[in-house]
């Protein structure tokens, strides 16, 4: 059975910070949403949890690009994560969860996979 997913509104356009990230709380846990106005697409969403420290901090990292790949650098131990694939550039075996993100009017929506509990409850 294919898990049901939902497009949740997580914030408004004015909450975003250009060239940087913000954190939102979702059913799937904390997610970092980045807005890079000089790229297309300009919105990215990845897990807010830094896999190396376990701390919820990735939205507070510095964004940029390395060899053309859009990345965020962990503010704790400075590893770089691709914003497209979630893969860690320094250690490809580590990968962040990524979320499809879209702009709906002035609302930002994330596609959140339904959690186990919800599926059961449904």
């Amino acid at each position, binding site marked *: 059975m294919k898990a049901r997913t939902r497009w949740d509104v997580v914030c408004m356009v004015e909450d975003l910070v250009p060239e940087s990230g913000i954190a939102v709380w979702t059913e799937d846990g904390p997610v970092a949403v980045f807005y890079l106005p000089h790229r297309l697409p300009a919105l990215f969403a990845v897990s807010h949890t830094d896999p190396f420290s376990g701390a919820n901090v990735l939205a507070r*990292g510095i964004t940029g690009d390395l060899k053309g790949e859009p990345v965020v650098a962990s503010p704790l131990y400075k590893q770089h994560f691709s914003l497209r694939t979630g893969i860690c550039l320094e250690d490809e075996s580590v990968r962040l969860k990524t979320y499809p993100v879209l702009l709906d009017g002035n609302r930002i929506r994330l596609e959140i996979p339904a959690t186990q509990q919800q599926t059961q409850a449904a």
Partner: protein
Amino acid sequence: MSKKTLIVIGNGMVGHHFLEQFAASPAATEYDVLVFGEEKQLAYDRVHLSEYFSGSTHADLAMGTADWYTDHHITLKLGEPVLTIDRDGKTVTTPAGQYPYDELVLATGSYPFVPPIEGNDNEHCFVYRTLDDLDAIRASASNAKTGVVVGGGLLGLEAANALKSLGLEAHVVEFAPRLMPVQLDADGGAVLRGKIEELGVRVHTEKATTAIVDGETARLRMNFSDGEFLETDLIVFSAGIRPQDTLARESELEVGERGGIVVNNQCTTSDPHIHAIGECALWNQRIFGLVAPGYTMARTLSAVLNGDGDAAFTGADMSTKLKLLGVDVGSIGDAHGQTAGARNIRYNDEQAGHYRRMVVSSDGKKLLGAILVGDNSYYDTLLQYALNGIDLPESAESLILPESQGGAPALGADALPDTASICSCHNVTKGDICGAIDAGCSDLGGIKAETKASTGCGGCAALLKNVVDSELEKRGVEVSKDICEHFPYSRQELFHLVKVNGIRTFRTLISQYGKGHGCDICKPTVGSILATCWNEHILATDHVPLQDTNDTFMANMQKNGTYSIVPRIPGGEITPDKLIVLGQVAKEYDLYTKITGGQRVDLFGATLSQLPEIWEKLIAAGFETGHAYGKSLRTVKSCVGSTWCRYGVQDSVGMAIFLENRYKGLRAPHKVKMAVSGCTRECAEAQSKDIGVIATENGWNLYVCGNGGMRPRHADLFVTDLSDEELIRTIDRVLMFYVRTADRLQRTSVWMENLEGGLDYLKEVVLEDSLGIGAELEEHMEGLVGTYQCEWKTAVEDPEKRKRFREFVNAPEKADPVQQWTTERDQRRPVLESA
């Protein structure tokens, strides 16, 4: 097998260098080593003896430590002179006893020659050779007005400068018709004299002193053979040195007619078990009164004692380059043109006080020697031509003409042969440097560590860098200073681009001078440059994405994603009321509280959303941000100083608070720490800081470029006895020059070490304003001081900025679930083993 005994007599510069070489050699295990020194201090850097008058201590000048001797099992007996040598019994005798030896090394140096003048034993007559001599001179000068140096040679002029620095009216009395007769010719001497008299030192040439008697207007009167006289309060004899060969004479070793212990190429005397090195040794009828040849002898002897049959001392170059009373003087090779057929090329600009002379071979092809007065920038090139026998260019005179008159560019590092000596202190050739590069060293730091080049007097720094850069380039190693893939520029170059083109945003800079979108290397760097240039709030919209999280949220992120808060406590002085507020705030938010090494209080465990509330409370109580998160001034640590401490001579707390308030908020390539001590006891540990200030009776001594941390470094004494205003102006310049020219994440120490010319260059720029930018640096600093704002105050007052501090923008009440806590020693601490 029982060990043999090696005895070294003399613990001076050369004796110590010999021990360093020998201790590191295989033969060290075969000998018990015993050292006797007549002076009571451990070997010290006599070359820089005069710095003792400008604040350096024996510890600063010392060449090694007592621990080093212990670690290498060397028995050191200081203040115990050797009185006799019994060559047949192979023993030496001191006032304390008799000691047998198998091999004996004489490193007894030399003693100052005091001309046989009636009255030369007066209690106010001195020589200039040891720390004890300088102590005696200082004591005598404390209630004197004038001082005379007898002898206008290299050391005499240095002594005259020292007298001047002690506040005396200084005179130099020279027997010859000119100053520095050994190194200079008549014209050079005249130019030097002019320059030195300009500086207020009175020069009397062609004067022979006949007697020293009681004076009428001063303590002493010197009578001259021409009937004239000069009154003075003290006299320093600097009329040449004589090899200390008494022990050798008395034990009937072969000595030279005019003194000196005769040695062969292996530095061995007429007794095969006795060796001599340094200024006491006479090689090929020559005495070497400089330290570098002594070091070469030391290395040779160490090799000889290790059974190296090829080791030989083959003479040494006596060229010298120095600054005497601030005047450049250089003398190379056959400066007087004594080689048969030698020809001269001269350049003389009396107006500017510049004199240069080249001595060239009869065919005009080779440089034999040279004299420089007034400008030593020509020295390195000329020395390389002379030492390496490189063919002179067609119009050889271009080597000494000023550049505006068609002067030649410096000799490229490429033109030097592999045998060219680059660093004479440590005997490093261009070949050695190439070898180190081929063995894998790929930067200046590595090559210095590997070859020791440029770690002695530092005179070769510029040349070394040229050779290294050119060799690296030849091997196709790109000597890249680019900060990252987005900008083909160094931090310093970016600073320049921003400043000159008035660029105010990262976007403009990267679109005009870079490529891509930036990264976590270039963004904070540019953020810091923009802050220094324009001093806008770091949370201005354009700047937010440039900052490291700590700068963005103006707090230090800890391992669980919470932050620590460090309010500024200038100079570590805090009122009880403020201290209570800190306690109340910490209690309310359950913050773990710890005192920092910089005399302030660190509050740990605040969440992102708590930061603005906490700061509102702190600001209301009069606190400001402490910039603990930024690459900027941290703290100015201080001791209580003259207000409370019975030893204090200045108000160190007052000065620390002033400095901290002046430089707070200044964005720099790395963090900057300072400290102020109220006296030389140095309770504030100022010498481990980027900027260290130590109070003196007359003002403040300034130390620069020290640090603690991973690679601790003592700060260097920069300038002494400054007034408050002078101190601040000097710090303004040093800091601003650092901020403008350092590389990303380069602390002041590394920055200074990487400046071509190091500390001396920094002194020139800051103290002598050699680049003519002093006023500009001060003005820039003044502007920054004037536009300072507490970033936290601006942030809490601005609702838009406060929005940034929401932990989850769609769930303001949500607590971060990974932040789990436990209690330890009565305070809250994080549990975070997951991940």
